[in-house]
């Protein structure tokens, strides 16, 4: 019991710096200090200067990254969505980099570097959803969250160091509990900032005339995808992940809070825009490539779910691109019956009359694995006629029974 009391006393210690931090944050708002999004903003103190300097160096390397999507049209589009969301005055402070990485993520550095992963672009259903994510990241930037998180961590790690040499040693269990409490409070601070960024994104969406319900939709889609992945892989869904050491609030909690905030911000969102057609048009040529990246993740359950939602739960929604993707997904898994299913999807894709030529390649390879050599070879030859310069042309020619020249 005594140990417990000490633990409580120790925990109380950390509650106060946290509260103090909140007061500081309020003062910051009252103070007319320039926002990082203001034109010509310069980092203020030594720490901010130091973080900017390191990030500027990292940005130089980022510019040479092989993962950078340099397509000017796609870059212009994403930048345009940000500017539409936060306004032309504030958006120039952020520099967007599109990274070709199949995961769902985006991040923001204190100097204005914003990373947007291609896996996120694949998962957004319309422009309003993309705007929700960009608005969230921009709020992190404007409210200087990385700087504040660094200060918070510094303060708490300092405290732990002092406690480790404190003349009065805490009993082992209490010391452990104290450590957990301190580390936990850092994560709790991080979650608070995520909530602040979520709230910020709703505000921006509403002001820009986007449907603010898009923010909640992003998380319900992601949550359902996590469920599908978990079911296939037989583990607990990541969407329920939370607790003391989580950097972000639970997905299910964010979904609910965002929906409430959206309802409060724009009670009647019937006039608000989602711009789904514009979004699909902007992604255009990138689509099959993003699909290939996703299939390479070998997440059958999640990808199957993702494709089905992209088709909109409507048989007519299965376009040639999506059917091709589904064929590739089954062909890559290669379990019993998968090649027959894959061949079927490829045939359906080809029947739509609007599918990547790779559908013939997929059909040929699937049929060969099924033992149907004549038809398989014929499909491969169709592919080689459509893509004579394909990287794997030489190999496929041999498989198609053509002699090497």
């Amino acid at each position: 019991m005594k140990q417990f009391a000490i633990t409580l006393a120790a925990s109380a210690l950390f509650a106060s710096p946290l509260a103090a931090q909140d007061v500081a944050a309020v003062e910051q708002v009252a103070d007319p200090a320039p926002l990082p999004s203001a034109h010509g903003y310069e980092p203020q103190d030594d720490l901010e200067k130091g973080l900017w300097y390191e990030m500027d160096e990292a940005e130089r390397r980022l510019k040479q990254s092989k993962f950078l999507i340099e397509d000017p049209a796609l870059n212009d589009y994403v930048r345009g969505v940000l500017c539409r969301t936060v306004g032309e005055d504030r958006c120039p402070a952020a520099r967007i980099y599109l990274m070709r990485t199949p995961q769902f993520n985006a991040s923001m550095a204190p100097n204005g570097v914003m990373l947007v992963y291609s896996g996120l672009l694949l998962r957004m259903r319309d422009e309003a959803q993309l705007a929700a994510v960009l608005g969230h990241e921009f709020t992190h930037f404007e409210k200087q969250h990385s700087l504040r998180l660094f200060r918070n961590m510094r303060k708490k790690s300092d405290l732990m160091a002092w406690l480790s040499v404190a003349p009065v040693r805490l009993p082992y269990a209490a010391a452990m509990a104290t450590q957990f409490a301190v580390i936990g409070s850092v994560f709790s601070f991080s979650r608070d900032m995520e909530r602040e960024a979520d709230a910020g994104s709703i505000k921006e969406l509403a002001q820009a005339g986007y449907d603010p319900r898009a923010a909640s939709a992003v998380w319900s889609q992601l949550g359902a995808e996590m469920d599908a992945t978990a079911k296939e892989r037989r583990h607990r869904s990541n969407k329920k992940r939370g607790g003391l050491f989580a950097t972000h609030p639970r997905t299910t909690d964010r979904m609910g809070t965002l929906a409430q905030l959206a309802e409060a911000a724009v009670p009647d969102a019937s006039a608000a825009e989602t711009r789904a057609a514009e979004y699909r048009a902007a992604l255009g040529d990138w689509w099959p490539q993003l699909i290939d990246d996703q299939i390479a993740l070998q997440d059958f359950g999640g990808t199957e779910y993702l494709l089905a939602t992209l088709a909109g739960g409507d048989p007519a929604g299965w376009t040639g691109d999506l059917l091709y993707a589904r064929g590739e997904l089954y062909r890559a898994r290669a379990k019993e019956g998968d090649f027959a299913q894959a061949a079927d999807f490829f045939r359906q894709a080809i029947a739509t009359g609007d599918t990547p030529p790779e559908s013939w390649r997929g059909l040929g390879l699937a049929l060969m694995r099924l033992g149907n050599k004549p038809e398989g070879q014929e499909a491969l030859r169709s592919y080689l006629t459509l893509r004579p310069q394909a990287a794997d042309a030489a190999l496929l020619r041999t498989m198609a029974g053509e002699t090497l020249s």
Partner: protein
Amino acid sequence: MKALLTAIVAALLLFVPAGSAHAQFGGLERTEVKEGYQLKPGAVQILVFRPDVHVGEQTTGGMNEPNAEWTQTAKAHIMAALEQEHLARGSQLVMVTQEDGEMGELVADYTALFGTVANSVLNHKMVRSNRLPTKRDAFDWTLGEDAARLKALGGDYGLFFYTYDSYGSTGRKIIQGLALVLGGGFVPSGVHIGYAGLVDLDTGDLVWLNVDTSMGGDIRTAEGAQKRVAQLMEEFPVRAEGVVVPEGTVTFDPPLPPDGPVDDEPVVASPTAAGDGQ
């Protein structure tokens, strides 16, 4: 570069308990030189790629707080000291500033490749417990012959280096002292890591690599930077004695026996010949 740093830090942690064999705080300190390697005689031009220098303060709790002012000062001091050091050795440094276009991309690619190769040397040769049997006596890493494309930037060698310094704050030093007195164990104050490597651009071979995880010299001062550079350049290959080319380093005949069997292609130090990969 990041990966190498991580490996160094990991190596540092690994070596702390078994540190008695090493200098003062037991950090990893190793230099590898390609056996019998000498720089070619005559005027030597060494390309120096964007120096990777990071200086910060180690907080009481052990985090690193980057400091832009210290970093900029240190970078200037180190570059000055490096230039001086190499002038004394009779070689000239050529700063590479290209960051855009095809050449900038090439520099970025080779910087990344160097980082990966250096990391491999660190892991599989320098860290004794993890040394590959085939690398016991060999130091034969290379970036490949295509590295010769970098010669178009105006040098025959490429020098890559990196330093990371996190100076212990007052709080950190007090903790270190208290922990020693109170029996809390050894709390390190300050992190000072550096490495440098030299690539022969004719062959692409890594000819020298020096890694030190407990470097000396306060690089925020000119004198400290000189000490640091001297440590960084430990066992740097010396120049071969012999024919000194009077002027123009564009072409020169290597001192090879005129009719002897020569396995390698003749060395012609002209950028055009070197750029032809076939």
